[in-house]
């Protein structure tokens, strides 16, 4: 058995975390397997108030990729705490509560509710590309990242993971900004801002014009960015972006990730996390690893 991975107060039994927006609040995956099989689960992105999400097209498959414009559809933090958390906290896996917001006050209101609850960790989403006033603005520059992390850190005493945008300044600078303001860990990448046009209709496919690109298509770029971030900070990095296989996930660890998020892979197949964990364990066994540390940040 390999070592437990520590990220703040979280103890992950394995490096695989299902990414926000690809696993709801866990109930659907629990129909297929016990969530204890996962290292962790990051909830659907929450905002203080409920959101209906975007209208119009929400999905478009591209070569080895998926564009989405869901728009942070969620029931709101309080409804999550009332309706989902009592069940979710009983699952034997680590839960990252993903929190987004439109503006600073909304983030503050959300995190204050979470601070006074029994949740252990927040993944602060400052990188959603699909809502107009949607947090991504905070993730675009090191200065604004530092500001929002500072604001949240003052109000949240538990494990704070900051999810960085791949759409702003160099991720190394964003990562350093989050670390300097007291983040316990960072995660990256969120989806890449992308565009699709319907030539037949002579208009953008998505009502917001742009949408977020995920899937295997983004993996090599995400891997480079995860390395950039891991080289820049000493806090743990959770890597992700188009990971589809155990090899992809192992490479994320080799460039410096402590844990690995799976997003589109989970949409492609709810059992993908188990397959990827099995593939990683097989590698660890074949190479007689006793700790993921042995292959971490070797590139």
């Amino acid at each position, binding site marked *: 058995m390999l070592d437990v991975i520590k990220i703040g107060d979280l103890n992950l039994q394995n490096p695989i975390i299902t990414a926000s927006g690809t696993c709801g609040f866990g109930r*659907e995956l629990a129909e297929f397997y016990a969530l204890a099989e996962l290292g962790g689960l990051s909830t659907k992105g929450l905002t203080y108030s409920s959101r209906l999400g975007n209208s119009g097209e929400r999905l478009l498959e591209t070569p080895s990729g998926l564009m*989405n414009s869901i728009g942070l559809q969620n029931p709101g933090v309080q409804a999550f705490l009332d309706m989902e958390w009592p069940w979710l906290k009983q699952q034997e896996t680590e839960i990252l509560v993903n929190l987004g917001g439109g503006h600073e006050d909304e983030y503050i209101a959300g995190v204050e509710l979470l601070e006074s609850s029994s949740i252990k960790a927040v993944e602060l989403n400052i990188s959603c590309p699909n809502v107009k006033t949607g947090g991504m603005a905070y993730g675009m520059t090191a200065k604004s990242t530092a500001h929002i992390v500072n604001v949240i850190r003052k109000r949240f005493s538990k494990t704070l993971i900051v999810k960085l945008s791949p759409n702003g300044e160099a991720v190394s600078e964003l990562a350093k900004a989050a670390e300097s303001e007291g983040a316990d860990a960072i995660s990256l990448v969120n989806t890449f801002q992308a565009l699709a046009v319907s030539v037949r209709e002579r208009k953008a496919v998505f009502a917001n014009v742009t949408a977020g690109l995920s899937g295997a298509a983004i993996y090599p770029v995400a891997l480079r960015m995860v390395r950039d971030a891991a080289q820049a900070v000493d806090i743990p990095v959770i890597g992700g972006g188009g990971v589809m296989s155990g090899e992809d996930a192992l490479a994320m660890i080799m460039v410096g990730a402590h844990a690995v998020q799976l997003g589109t892979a989970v949409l492609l197949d709810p059992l993908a996390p188990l*397959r990827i964990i099995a593939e990683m364990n097989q590698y660890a066994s074949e190479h007689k690893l006793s700790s993921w540390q042995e292959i971490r940040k070797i590139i």
Partner: protein
Amino acid sequence: MCNQDNTPLSAYVEARIIETIKLTDEIVDLTLRREDGKPFAGKPGQFVMIKPQGRTDMLGRPISIARLNSDGTLRLLVRQAGKISKALYDAQCNSHWLVFGPLGHGFELKAGLRTALVGGGIGIAPLLELAVKLQSTGQVKPDIFLGYRDEPYATELFSPLAHEFTVMTEHGASCKQGLITEACNLENYDIVYACGPDGLLQALWRQRPDNVEMQLSLERKMACGYGVCLGCIVATQDGGNKRACADGPVFDAKELVYA
């Protein structure tokens, strides 16, 4: 990526096409058998996600269950709409596919009622399994109304299952022209089951008498097919929305809102 398909850690099972019949230049009638020898399962109105074998990096496509045959095989009626459905149309016998399902909530079968089935275009597909099960489990022989844009297809599958059988086409020549929603007098029924394009379902929804139960199966683009991505939402009466994949694809008309 291909060698990953050998792992059993997948919700998709391998299946082989054992029969393919091109019904029109865009509709194909496929029969698939699971490679593990197990029977396909499901209920009328449920669907499967299907994609070519070896494409673990590709989303499945949601296709309604048209028939669950007694020999365990699965019948699908597929209309060419994009690349995967075109590949299904062109698929050869013995080609291998990956199938995930059954998914979603299907029709709720009710016996002893005056029953109509209304299908539009490829939306006729789930009504076939429904008509078979209404007869075998509820001794109901419904009136069946099928509407097509162009020439009708698969009508011979439905006619033996219908009490009254009505086929109409918008542009075709081989049967009565017009909209199928105009041929069906909803007042004559206690329950109406329907599947088809939004226009047809919207027309039925608007015309629905208060005392007629209506179960509508909606078509939506999907990514996951099992409820997590929120890509296939449907507007509901409470001002919110539901997921076509996991809460549907069949909804009680009373739940829905058409703008």
